[in-house]
């Protein structure tokens, strides 16, 4: 167990330590030792100002994709999961079968065809090309589905109906509150997958102005290694830290919620 902790943590420690080093110290000192100057804040400043402040733009893009994409994915999954759990309607089984197929068929294998289709629709190289595909989360739908089956008592829904509330109103006033741990879990995992998304934006976007952090960082890195290299290792490393920190913070802050959401709604039979 302890060995595994070291394995899990050492690369992260290396990343953090490296972010405090100057470019020269990076190359001149052993990986896990600090350099002689503490350059973290200089590095952060340099990261944000390099290339006309494009890093900030990438951060903004990532936030946009996360808020709209992950937010939308959570909303759609919540409504659909609840609908599937609490209403018997014709075609329910068919919906399940199609979703099952979608999970089994590799998502990223579809990325190239999705790009071709979106380019026919003239959506490529716009934020929509990144946002629309991230709106669908079969995993989230499944999680809410199992979660709602347990957390929303039929009697409560029935009672609200007798009181004369409409279906939509029941959903917003009664159901949503009961689903909160499930929703937080789904939202967090949707945030991670949009925040970390690389393949899709790489394919869809050709304009650096629309890049999310992941694609931008790799472009900086490729430039550091490629022909006519522009050695900005310290910016790649500091940028990486800045990309990781918000997610780690979110997981730590919300851990009680998402872990209970997972345990209650996941792989139980």
């Amino acid at each position, binding site marked *: 167990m302890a060995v595994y902790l070291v394995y899990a943590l050492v690369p992260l420690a290396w990343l953090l330590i490296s972010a405090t080093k100057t470019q020269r110290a990076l190359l001149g000192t052993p990986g896990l030792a600090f350099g002689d100057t503490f350059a973290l804040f200089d590095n952060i400043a340099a990261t944000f100002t390099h290339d006309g402040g494009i890093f900030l733009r990438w951060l903004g893009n990532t936030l946009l994709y996360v808020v709209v994409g992950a937010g939308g994915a959570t909303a759609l999954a919540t409504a659909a999961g609840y609908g599937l759990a609490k209403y018997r309607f014709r075609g329910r089984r068919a919906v399940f079968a199609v979703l099952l197929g979608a999970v089994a068929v590799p998502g990223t*294998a579809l990325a190239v065809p999705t790009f071709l289709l979106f380019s026919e629709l003239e959506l490529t190289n716009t934020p929509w090309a990144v946002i629309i595909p991230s709106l669908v989360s079969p995993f989230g739908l499944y999680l809410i589905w199992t979660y709602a089956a347990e957390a929303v008592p039929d009697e409560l829904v029935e009672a609200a109906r007798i009181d004369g509330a409409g279906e939509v109103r029941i959903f917003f006033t009664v159901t949503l509150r009961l689903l909160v741990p499930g929703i937080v879990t789904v939202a967090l995992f949707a945030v991670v997958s949009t925040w970390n998304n690389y393949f899709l934006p790489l394919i869809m976007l050709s304009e650096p102005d629309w890049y999310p952090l992941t694609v931008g960082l790799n472009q900086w890195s490729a430039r550091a290694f490629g022909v006519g290299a522009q050695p900005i290792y310290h910016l790649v490393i500091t940028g990486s830290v800045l990309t990781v920190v918000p997610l*780690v913070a979110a997981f730590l802050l919300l851990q009680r919620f998402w872990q209970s959401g997972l345990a209650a709604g996941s*792989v139980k039979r």
Partner: protein
Amino acid sequence: MTSVSAPTRAPRPAARRGRVDRRGWLFVAPFLVVFALVFLAPVAYAVWLSLFREQVFFGGTAFVGPANYVAVLRDAKFWESFLRMSLFLVVQVPVMLALALAAALAIDSARLHAAGFFRIVIFLPYAVPGVVAALMWGFLYGDDFGLAADLNGLLGREVVRPLSGDWVLASIGNVVTWEFVGYNMLILYSALKVVPADLYEAAAIDGAGAWRTIRSVKLPALRGALVVATIFSIIGSFQLFNEPNILRSLAPNAISTSYTPNMYAYNLSFGGQQYNYSATVAIVMGVITAVIAYVVQLRGTRKGA
């Protein structure tokens, strides 16, 4: 998710069974509309594309029926990348799941102090974007400021060369393992959490020790979650793209443009403009993956059930 049966288990009062409640569509429809746009339409479009071929001399495309499929099945580059990923899968996935299982069991057996701390630390790498993980490990592997170089310096000679042709597949496997052990651990751990306490009590009364409890109570309870984790891992392996593609800038000789099937499809499209052929590669890979995932699911749920 695939192995779990539809949550229809909640017993319905007899009076309402059979009554069709169309209002459910109200909630499901928005999801399905977007789903159709980003899943069903691309699949259909890919199938359509795969039936045509770019005309080299005249421009435009011509209908060729199954010819692209025949070409993919005879494509040495495709099979090479497919076999490479099969090897990767056979080695990496069991290692990763074994580590995840060990971690989940260790944390669950309350003997471990600060279980919450362990859980979150092991999970942390999952919150690191794959791109950052690959960049980071790329640095660690490299000669300039890598731990690999430090290690070689310490040992006095070149012992580890993670980015050489012989090692690079294992190096990628290491990155993927590092990223996903925590995630799989969490799936397994949350399955363990819902094991009813009376099962443990019964085992204790029967005189079962810790190992015996793991074998007879915990592992059976984990089977469903293990199948799910395996299927996700298989799909992930066959789709591998980010890590090798990013490490390629460090090791362009060891990692070719057709290193994985997904990289091959990508480079066919964006390096060679061969959209039709690329769509065919994507479909063939999708079908193979789905079939393997399905077989795993069937075997996994049948065994001893």
